[in-house]
């Protein structure tokens, strides 16, 4: 690629030629971190041990809503081995907005807002000593009335969780727990419903679920009296940890160095802080000794990021031939006791995103409840929205005797469609997914008694975001890439493949390191399905910069014009009139001699990455329902999704399968169960029932590739869309098997049996 070409592409940020043939992109090599991860060598959050380290334990409130009257830590402070105790009032005052909310959730100051809210913490010489000392802390509470359910929290007379948090758009007269109101749409809704042959409306509910990563949150924090500190932590985003901990503790961000460990799953739940700042606060009080803080599973479930619970109204108009004429949704979502944590806006935007509708209307309420502060969970808001809308589309399709895939093809969004949330779609792959699903052999399988088939589509925006990447050339011609997005599902491999492709060097000549906050500019976390997209795109641009420099070095060495060379297959070649004049100068040769040709060679790129391409998918599931117990068994599962381009197809398939499995859990068994006192009843994997190996069949995948012109290799994000369709697809399959429609997740055996019995 010639230099000016590269420059032009960098500036325009899109319209890459994505139709090229590739040597590395699209292959399935071993992941670079595979060996460490199959031998137990890989270091996760809790695997970090440092000299002179203390261990922390956290005291958590057993009440859903209470005022803290007093905290007496004297006995804990006097206990054997205890070096520091912190409570909420030890943290700096005067924070506002989101920073204050993070601080309140780190350690309660005046009130506890949910069962599991942290109120105090201890650092001691051993984990057992810290655990023993925490029990010596005496807290006096004044219990306050609480509310858990989203509809109950909006109702007149509901306990007020916070005053003065209502956003400017909330209509007057609404309960103070309603903190945000969103309304948008386009087209003539009344005319749309009038034009329909069938108009149906229903209400759907989903319960809170947890991301369920297997690795609990863990960190080692060290902070001195001089305000300088370090943290080793499992996180999706080390810069977010730095920014948030600095805000909560009143530190200067640049004084805090955050190094990410390997991460044992995140799914959005590790894009924020929960107890991380506590380890730093304890460390400062303990004279700067490092403090390790590892959550228990029960702490993870009680006090870290579940997703919202919802109550959703949907109304759709459809003609007898399946043409959809109008759609309306009203969503009520609670995301815990802090505003803006429920993904209400995103849920609304996703609701009808798969459809080309002449008239749509969306209305949403963000509501407070006495539950933990919600965090992002894979395609935040989209699975719930899909459950409501795709369930109703299915009900209407059945009523009209139409084929569910054909109805979705007929109304499906495509290039040029004005999306339900406003903008006009560029190139998208929904119809390609639906056509591929229709043609898949799973659909030819005959269903037996008590068996049913369900179809649903799903959508996620994908995200670019703030990104900074460096690469440098080694003396042997190999390349090191410094990236800022933790590798959760194989992104080292996908980035290395794109770098190998760009430079024309072997995949195993590229090493991708995930680096600490001092080594690069700010990076957003590995969230929004952005790691392979944005880090990959920036890595390609960093390589292009280095290619430019290598071309200049060679041209200079050869004494020819720097535009008269080209980069090809890992070497600089003389081009144009000079073609063949000199033997190609390989990257190895350039690396060996760079000290003599002008010094180290590196490339760097930073951007708020544009060129994002949306991701659509279609799932088809076959289930069997035991008519006597209501138990649902997944017989077959098919995921079809547009990847744009699959850089490492195995890990793309892995994202599809993992998203589907999480969606299956959400649909059938996962939920937060509260008692009358607002206490979480199932903070243990025994009763928070994520799918186990014997619950699932093989999950079939089809990767559709409608390249995204905004990425050098056509990448769209693939991480999130896959969790969206399973919720409605399974509801639709259960309806097909039993003739009963379940509108409240999870569809537990008890609920299904009740529906079967009650008709």
């Amino acid at each position, binding site marked *: 690629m010639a230099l000016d070409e590269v420059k032009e592409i960098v500036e325009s940020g899109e319209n890459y030629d994505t139709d090229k043939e590739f040597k590395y992109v699209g292959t399935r090599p071993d992941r670079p971190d595979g060996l460490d991860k199959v031998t137990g060598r890989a270091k996760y959050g809790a695997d970090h041990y440092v000299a002179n380290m203390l261990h922390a334990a956290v005291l958590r409130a057993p009440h859903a809503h209470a005022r803290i009257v007093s905290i007496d830590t004297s006995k804990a402070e006097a206990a054997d081995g205890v070096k520091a105790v912190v409570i909420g009032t030890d943290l700096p005052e005067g924070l506002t907005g989101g920073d204050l909310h993070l601080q309140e959730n780190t350690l309660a100051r005046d009130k506890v807002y949910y069962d599991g809210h942290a109120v105090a913490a201890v650092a001691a010489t051993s984990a057992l000593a810290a655990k023993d000392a925490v029990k010596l802390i005496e807290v006096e509470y004044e219990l306050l009335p609480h509310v858990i359910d989203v509809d109950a929290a909006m109702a007149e007379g509901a306990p007020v969780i916070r005053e003065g948090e209502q956003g400017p758009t909330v209509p007057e007269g609404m309960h103070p727990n309603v903190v945000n109101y*969103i309304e948008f749409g386009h087209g003539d809704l009344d005319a749309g419903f009038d034009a329909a042959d069938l108009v149906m409306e229903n209400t759907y509910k989903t319960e809170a679920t947890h991301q369920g990563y297997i690795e609990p949150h863990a960190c080692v924090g060290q902070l001195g009296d001089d305000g300088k500190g370090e943290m080793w932590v499992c996180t999706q985003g080390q810069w977010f940890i730095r920014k948030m901990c600095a805000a909560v503790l009143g530190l200067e961000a640049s004084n805090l160095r955050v190094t990410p460990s390997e991460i044992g799953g995140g799914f959005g739940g590790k894009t924020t802080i929960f107890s991380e700042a506590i380890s730093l606060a304890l460390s400062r009080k303990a004279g700067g000794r490092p403090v390790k803080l590892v959550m228990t599973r029960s702490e993870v479930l009680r006090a870290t990021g579940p997703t919202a619970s919802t109550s959703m109204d949907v109304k759709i108009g459809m003609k007898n031939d399946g043409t959809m004429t109008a759609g309306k949704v009203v969503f009520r979502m609670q995301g815990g006791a802090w505003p803006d944590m429920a993904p209400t806006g995103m849920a609304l935007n996703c609701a009808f995103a798969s459809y080309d509708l002449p008239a749509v209307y969306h209305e949403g309420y963000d509501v407070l409840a006495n539950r933990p502060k919600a965090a992002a969970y894979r395609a935040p808001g989209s699975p719930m929205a899909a459950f409501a809308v795709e369930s109703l589309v299915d009900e209407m399709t059945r009523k009209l005797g139409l084929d569910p895939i054909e109805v979705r093809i007929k109304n499906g969004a495509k290039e040029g469609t004005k999306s339900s949330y*406003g903008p006009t779609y560029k190139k998208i792959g929904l119809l390609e997914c639906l056509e591929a699903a229709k043609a898949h052999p799973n659909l030819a399988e005959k269903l037996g008694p008590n068996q049913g088939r369900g179809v649903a589509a799903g959508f996620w925006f994908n995200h*670019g*975001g703030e990104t900074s990447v460096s690469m440098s050339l080694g003396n042997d011609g190999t390349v090191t890439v410094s990236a800022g997005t933790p590798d959760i599902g194989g992104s080292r491999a996908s980035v290395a493949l794109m770098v190998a492709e760009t430079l024309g060097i072997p995949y195993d000549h590229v090493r991708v390191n995930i680096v600490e906050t001092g080594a690069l500019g700010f990076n957003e976390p590995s969230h929004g399905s952005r790691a392979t997209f944005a880090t990959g795109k920036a890595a390609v641009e960093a390589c292009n910069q280095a290619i430019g420099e290598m071309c200049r070095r060679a041209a200079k060495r050869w004494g020819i014009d720097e535009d008269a060379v080209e980069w090809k297959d890992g070497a600089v070649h003389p081009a144009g009139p000079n073609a063949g004049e000199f033997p190609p100068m390989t990257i190895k040769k350039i690396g060996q001699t760079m000290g003599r040709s002008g010094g180290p060679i590196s490339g760097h790129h930073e951007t708020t990455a*544009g060129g994002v391409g949306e991701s659509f998918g279609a799932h088809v599931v076959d289930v069997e329902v035991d008519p006597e117990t209501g138990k649902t068994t997944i017989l077959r599962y098919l995921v079809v999704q547009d990847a744009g381009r699959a850089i490492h197809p195995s890990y793309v398939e892995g994202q599809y399968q993992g998203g589907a499995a999480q969606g299956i859990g959400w649909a059938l068994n996962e939920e937060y169960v509260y008692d009358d006192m607002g206490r979480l009843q199932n903070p243990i994997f025994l009763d928070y029932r994520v799918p186990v190996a014997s619950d699932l069949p093989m999950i079939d995948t089809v990767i559709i590739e409608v390249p995204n012109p905004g990425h050098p290799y056509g990448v769209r994000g693939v991480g999130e869309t896959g969790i969206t369709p399973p919720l409605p697809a399974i509801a639709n399959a259960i309806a097909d098997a039993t003739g009963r429609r379940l509108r409240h997740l999870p569809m537990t055996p008890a609920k299904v049996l009740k529906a079967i019995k009650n008709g």
Partner: protein
Amino acid sequence: MVEVNLWSGLRRFTDGELVVHVEADTVGKMLDALIAAHPDLAPVIEAGLSVAVDGEVITDAHHTPIRPDSEIFLLQQLKGG
């Protein structure tokens, strides 16, 4: 002038208008111009939102150029898991 499509909940801050025309050639300038024209929008814009320019949703890239014929929508802030 560029045409900016608001979400309808913002009507109350723009004297009922859902489409606002402002003079701007980047997203950042467009948002500044919106606040200048309708100061009540300031808290909503400053709290953070996403902007879709010609079909692409951007969250923070306020340097993104816009042309007079660009399709522009304001959206609730998007973030992923």
